[in-house]
């Protein structure tokens, strides 16, 4: 096909134009080369021959973590790291050998760290070296070309294992983390939060590294700093924790495996979260040694596990709060209902035994005495489906959404669940078990705290929170968190009154007397949860003051046997501390 003459002409004109554009552009590049190589050639030659540029990263200090009153929980301290600049390593084998002797690290390990590192990047090979090593390195400076000592701010946990599970710890960034995070400015060798708040808010806490452009001579010795840009320290994270209450909770829990959660039922702010056994996050601050890591990670007592959010337990009798609420809600019972407890319950030819015969009980005294027979009757009246529905409404069987990594969901069993997991239908006996918190139900202490908070505040199922605010390094408030209501449970005022009366009776005259505190009305529920793996878990979940709840405390002690004996006294000590700290000042502030 032949184009009409006119367009043919235009076509060749356009070809000529294309040729002109290409010629012009190449010409400009030629001029630029003339500028670089001929006009400025001597300058660049000087830079290249005698002197070179090197860019050092200036590590920015990580942000602080404070408690709600501004007391530091996590800080930084100065330290020195030994690093290698692969590019400047002339006699690699020799240098590594000397370094290996000085540091006491096998050369193979040093080589491993250098593998794949870009030639122009400093590779940290040992953090937080002591003054003796530093002086030795200085003495042998001439044998150690390419070795640098750099100042690195180091993470410090002044309170040691205190609140370790909340705070978390740091570790060197892993390959897979790097893949995801490289474009947020993370680089090889960076320290990054691996657990707890350090991980949850890593991006807020990590600052922005600065850089230093240094002119160095042919031997890699710095001649002068050409340009320096200071880094920006990380933001300060203020937690809702109160250090004094945290201390009290951990001291009260002592050396018993378990967890304590203290929470403000009005806001969902977590005031204390303890989990034992614990560990010292300072061990991780400098890059933990494999032996220490293995010792902690393989410990059968699982010290790294945050038992408040990442361990799910049988709830035992604390679950009776759910059963009681379901019964009140479905009108299977009310405050005036009475029950007869002969000490056992007959269902389908099987005898279910209670601890003792309570005789005639009211709803209130049934709760106070944790009478199984009453709750079995309630459970049967309500039915498993409604029990499960109430449990879910109160936030069981789902993550609370607390701002910590690693939370588990727990289990609220249903008919389908049992069929699926065990291949068996749901029997009425299962409903009895569920009604008293035995069987398949699994809950975390934090979920229980959230339920208690909902009872205390009249039905708001809150999202528990650890972040109170974020401050810029200069102290400006960047963000302040507020309560998040995940769900609202609407029950009649009579129903709330009935369950609360029962919970007050638990502490005044029932199974939870060990949680009573002078001068303060306390409500709560004990639990002793049978477990297939040993002695029952001991529970206490309560709130105070009963008439104006401002504190929820939940205690779970693994294999602690009796809630009223093992868990309630721990709660009492936490509530007492809270009373000393908050009750008097609040009174002067005009609160009743």
């Amino acid at each position, binding site marked *: *096909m032949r*184009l*009409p003459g006119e*367009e043919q002409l*235009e*076509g*060749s004109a*356009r*070809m000529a*134009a*294309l*040729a002109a554009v*290409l*010629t012009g*552009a*190449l010409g400009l*590049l*030629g001029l*630029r*080369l*003339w500028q*670089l*190589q*001929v006009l*400025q*050639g*001597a*300058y*660049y*030659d000087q*830079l*290249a*021959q005698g002197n*070179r*540029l090197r*860019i050092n*990263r200036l590590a920015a200090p990580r942000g602080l973590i404070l408690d709600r009153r501004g007391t530091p929980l996590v800080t930084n301290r100065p330290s020195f790291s030994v690093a290698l600049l692969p*590019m400047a390593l002339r006699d690699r084998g020799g240098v590594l050998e000397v370094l290996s002797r000085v540091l006491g690290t096998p050369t193979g390990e040093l080589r491993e760290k250098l593998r794949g590192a*870009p*030639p*122009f*990047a400093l590779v940290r090979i040992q953090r937080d070296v002591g003054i003796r090593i530093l002086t030795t390195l200085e003495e042998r400076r001439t044998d150690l070309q390419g070795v640098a000592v750099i100042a690195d701010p180091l993470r410090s946990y002044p309170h040691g294992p205190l609140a370790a599970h909340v705070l978390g710890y740091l570790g060197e960034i892993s390959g897979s983390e790097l*893949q995801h995070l*490289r*474009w*947020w400015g993370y*680089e090889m060798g960076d320290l990054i939060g691996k657990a707890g708040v350090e991980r949850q808010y890593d991006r807020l806490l990590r600052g922005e590294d600065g*850089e230093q452009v240094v002119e160095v001579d042919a031997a890699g010795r710095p001649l002068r700093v050409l340009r320096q840009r200071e880094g920006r320290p990380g933001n300060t994270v203020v937690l809702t924790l109160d250090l004094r209450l945290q201390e009290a909770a951990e001291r009260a829990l002592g050396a018993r495996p378990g967890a304590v959660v203290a929470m403000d039922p009005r806001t969902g702010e977590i005031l204390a979260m303890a989990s034992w056994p614990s560990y010292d996050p300072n061990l991780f601050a400098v890059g933990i040694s494999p032996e220490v890591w293995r010792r902690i990670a393989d410990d059968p007592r699982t010290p790294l596990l945050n038992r408040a959010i990442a361990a799910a337990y049988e709830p035992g009798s604390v679950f009776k709060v759910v059963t009681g609420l379901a019964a009140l809600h479905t009108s299977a019972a009310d405050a005036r209902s009475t029950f007869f407890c002969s000490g056992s319950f007959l269902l389908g030819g099987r005898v279910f035994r209670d601890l003792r015969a309570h005789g005639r009980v009211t709803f209130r005294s049934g709760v106070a005495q944790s009478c199984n027979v009453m709750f079995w009757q309630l459970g049967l009246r309500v039915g498993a489906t409604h029990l499960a529905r109430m449990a879910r409404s109160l936030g069981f069987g789902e993550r609370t959404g607390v701002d910590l990594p690693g939370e588990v969901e727990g289990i609220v069993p249903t008919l389908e669940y049992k069929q699926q997991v065990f291949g068996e239908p749901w029997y009425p006996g299962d409903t009895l078990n569920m009604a008293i918190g035995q069987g398949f139900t699994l809950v975390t202490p934090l979920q229980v705290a959230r339920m208690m908070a909902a009872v205390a505040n009249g039905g708001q199922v809150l999202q528990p929170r650890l972040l109170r605010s974020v401050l810029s390094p200069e102290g400006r408030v960047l963000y302040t968190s507020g309560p998040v209501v995940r769900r609202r449970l609407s029950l009649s005022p009579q129903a709330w009154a009935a369950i609360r009366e029962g919970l007050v009776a638990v502490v005044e005259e029932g199974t939870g007397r060990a949680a009573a505190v002078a001068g303060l009305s306390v409500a709560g529920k004990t639990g002793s949860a049978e477990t297939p793996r040993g002695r029952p878990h001991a529970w206490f979940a309560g709130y105070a003051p009963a008439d104006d709840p401002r504190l929820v405390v939940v205690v779970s002690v693994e294999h602690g046997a009796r809630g009223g004996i093992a868990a309630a006294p721990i709660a009492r000590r936490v509530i007492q501390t809270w009373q000393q700290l908050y009750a008097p000042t609040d009174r002067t502030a005009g609160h009743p």
Partner: protein
Amino acid sequence: MDPVLLVSALGLCTLGTLAILSATRSPESPSGLLSARLAHLAGGMVLLGVCAALPLETFRRVAKGLYGLSLALLLLVDLAGHERLGAQRWLQLGPLSFQPSELAKLSVILLLSDALARQTTPPRTLGAVMGRCLWVLPALVLVFLQPDLGTTLVFLAIVLGMLFAVGTPLRTLAGLVGMGLAVMPVVWRWLKPYQQKRLLVFLDPSLDPLGAGYHLIQSKIAIGSGQVWGKGLFQGTQNTLQFLPMQHTDFVFAVIGEELGFVGAIGVLGLFWVYLIRGLQAAQRAPDAFGRLVGVGIVAMVGFHVLVNVGMTVGVMPVTGIPLPFLSYGGSALLANLAATGILLNLGRRRGWSGP
């Protein structure tokens, strides 16, 4: 057949091979990546011969099939590609790695040439242009998502170059560019944060001073210190001390600039100039509109690569990862460029004897 065109391409290949040898050899492996480069070169020469000898019609017939294959491979890369340097661009086939975007560039040229050559008049309106170029869009999007912004721009340069050559009014071309800029905010919101960051670094390398910015400083020092005559082949200190990262791929021109100086660097630009002008002439001698368009497309592709890559190493263009044709180390690109050279030679072939 145009011997000058062939010689300029071979000259570039030879200089590239020397520069790669210089950049990658070390006391432990004195020949560096030389053997792999020679293997690519040999394969490329065979491809060049085949492309120069086939009847031009063949390219027209296989255009759609090649394009379909490119799309499939690009999709495969996006889904399962090998990640290098933070972007997915390669497919790994046993020991061989392959970069489908190189095939995609050629097949887009062929497909678009076919589409435009079917018309007697150039597309005059934006609508007509869009209608004609719609087929290019899937390849563009897939490459963009890898993410490979450099190659995406190469596609756009090819399309603009061909539309210009075919006589599309300048007004319409300007409208097209304007439209591209207008959809940017929409595209932006579709991107993942890390892709956005990459684009920001592209616009402002100082955002990534230890990555792209570092390369730029070192590249300028290497080239500048070469001065007029260069430090001599294999004598570059910046290169051999590995101040320059990736000096054998995207920054190979810096090795030439340092070791062969202004003379060598201008020589390379001169060879490219000869190649591109001769390429345009071959396009003009092509027997039909399809051939003309293919020629222009290839020239636009190679020319854009040269301008952006060299511009980057001398610090007048942002740092993007697009290689220097014939010189950079990289098998897929070399094969594609030699095949393209074969097609250019084919276009300029005297055809007096082949039919009426």
